[in-house]
């Protein structure tokens, strides 16, 4: 279909508009985060350019009727929760994917059970979990009832990523290690794991970003100590101010930092692999 220049050009323009559609709100949000404060609202026109709302975010402005966003502890909780979720879901996902390298009885059922975790809407799962906790007399907390649900959500992603990685992994390398007298457990630690590590990194990235931003699953299960998305959700009820946009800009920058770190780690491992692979093909000694 490469020889349809008019269609191609039309679609290219369309795709451009599509990307504007995706990014438009961000641009507007970015602009409005520089609204003058404290009298400026979260809409146009910009009264005066200022960094007031950024300073407001960090409590660097004089107290007004607009309370600072209650994000400090919430941010810490969210980071801790995302980290724990990442570790647990990556371990579970890797183990399960390892199991799926062979066909086994019940694999079909288990596959769909795991996938169900990313399919069931978080709100319903949160509701069910809250009901369970209430009837068992368990206190709801972000590190308990919410945490287990976060793993239910991110573990299927880790599983799928690792499954794709193992599909491309040559089992003969492991067989060679076994035939040298090395047990399967040590083989996994010394051979398999280092070779699939880039995949593990991707699984971890999934786990972290999904959990960090997750709130339907936390809403009924996190108890009184809220996570970051819950703190933001709390502002929905009241009037919003440009401080939330300033926070949006900062948290976007933070996410990009995480993404950049991931990118650098990946690039480094790809580069290492390439150095290994591209060495001069010397002739026989």
């Amino acid at each position: 279909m490469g020889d349809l220049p008019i269609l191609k050009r039309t679609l290219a323009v369309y795709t451009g508009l599509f990307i504007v559609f995706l990014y438009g709100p961000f641009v507007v949000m970015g602009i409005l985060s520089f609204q003058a404060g404290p009298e400026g609202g979260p809409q146009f026109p910009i009264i005066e350019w200022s960094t007031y709302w950024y300073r407001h975010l960090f409590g660097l402005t004089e107290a007004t009727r607009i309370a600072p966003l209650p994000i400090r502890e919430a941010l810490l909780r969210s980071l801790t929760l995302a980290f724990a979720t990442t570790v647990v879901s990556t371990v579970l996902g890797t183990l399960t994917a390892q199991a799926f390298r062979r066909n086994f009885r019940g694999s079909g059922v288990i596959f769909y059970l795991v996938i169900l975790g990313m399919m069931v809407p978080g709100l319903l799962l949160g509701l069910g979990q809250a009901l369970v906790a209430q009837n068992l007399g368990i206190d709801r907390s972000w590190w308990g009832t919410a945490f287990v649900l976060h793993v239910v959500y991110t573990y299927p992603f880790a599983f799928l990523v690792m499954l794709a990685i193992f599909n491309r992994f040559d089992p003969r390398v492991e067989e060679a290690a076994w035939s040298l007298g090395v047990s399967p457990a040590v083989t996994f630690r010394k051979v398999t794991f280092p070779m699939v590590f880039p995949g593990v990194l991707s699984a971890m990235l999934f786990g972290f970003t999904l959990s960090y931003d997750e709130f339907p699953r936390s809403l009924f299960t996190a108890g009184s100590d809220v996570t970051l998305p819950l703190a933001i959700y709390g502002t929905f009820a009241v009037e919003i101010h440009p401080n939330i946009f300033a926070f949006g800009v900062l948290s976007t920058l933070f996410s990009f930092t995480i993404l950049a770190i991931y990118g650098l780690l990946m690039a480094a491992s790809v580069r290492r692999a390439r150095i290994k692979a591209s060495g001069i093909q010397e002739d026989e000694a």
Partner: protein
Amino acid sequence: MTSSETLTRPAPAAADPRAEGWFARNRSLVLASPGVAWMVLFLLVPLGMMIYVSFWTQTTFAINSTLTTKSWVAFFSSDTYVGALLRTLRLWLTVLALTFVIGYPTALFIGRFVRSKSIQTILLVACVIPFWTSFLIRVLAWRPMLGREGAVNIVLENLGIISQPIETLLFTETSVIIGMVQIYVVFMVGPVAFMLARIDDSLIEAARDLGASAWTIFSRIIFPLSLPGVVVGAIFVSVMVLGEFATASALSGRKVNLLGNIIVSQVGSLKWAFAAVIGVVLTVCIGVVVAALLRLVNLRKEL
């Protein structure tokens, strides 16, 4: 030359009975068991609990485990709730249709018209980048876009397309739909573009050599082959839209109540049994939609 021999690994279900120990024979099950246990405890048990509690007796501020269908009767005899169910389904269908209509051309461009793999990747990454911003902030960002003095009205007025600002953009069902489409359309673009990019060029060349028109090629070859991507995308979009409540509460000014919003407010007023009924209704809706979509495509194979 022996790859077929080495790749055809048999299921250890028929394992050698002499192999050492139960653990060695059921290695896969042992490896999968922590994950399975987790999912049973924290996925199936909560869902089961939700179904169970939906039959409990609701008093003003408490529930007790006397079984009754009262909450169910109350749900289906209330115009408010049945109305919310219908609104949820209508909104879901609208958003699903729009993500397809808006997303498919983009996927077509990325998957079939962009020749360079790296530009393909860049475009797809550009679509995914917004996901690294908080979902809630992305929703909130629509408010200054759609308001009476929002960016959309300003741009349209300056272009001379409208003379009066459009009042109905924000805090209506329209704003909820716009917000959802923007957030979820990427889930349609990704899988479709992936499937489109996988189509073998020689297939299309062969069709063209046989004199097929561009439209015939699209409708008889390209579209059918991209269908698994559409289905996967539709599953993603459906599951997320049906379970939605945040977009509606942020962009509708609490005027558009979806089933999700009702669950939230019922839980807020401690009406657990009632929330559970709505939860089950929603689960059934999602289950039916996903099952219907899965009949069209084998998800395990496509992933």
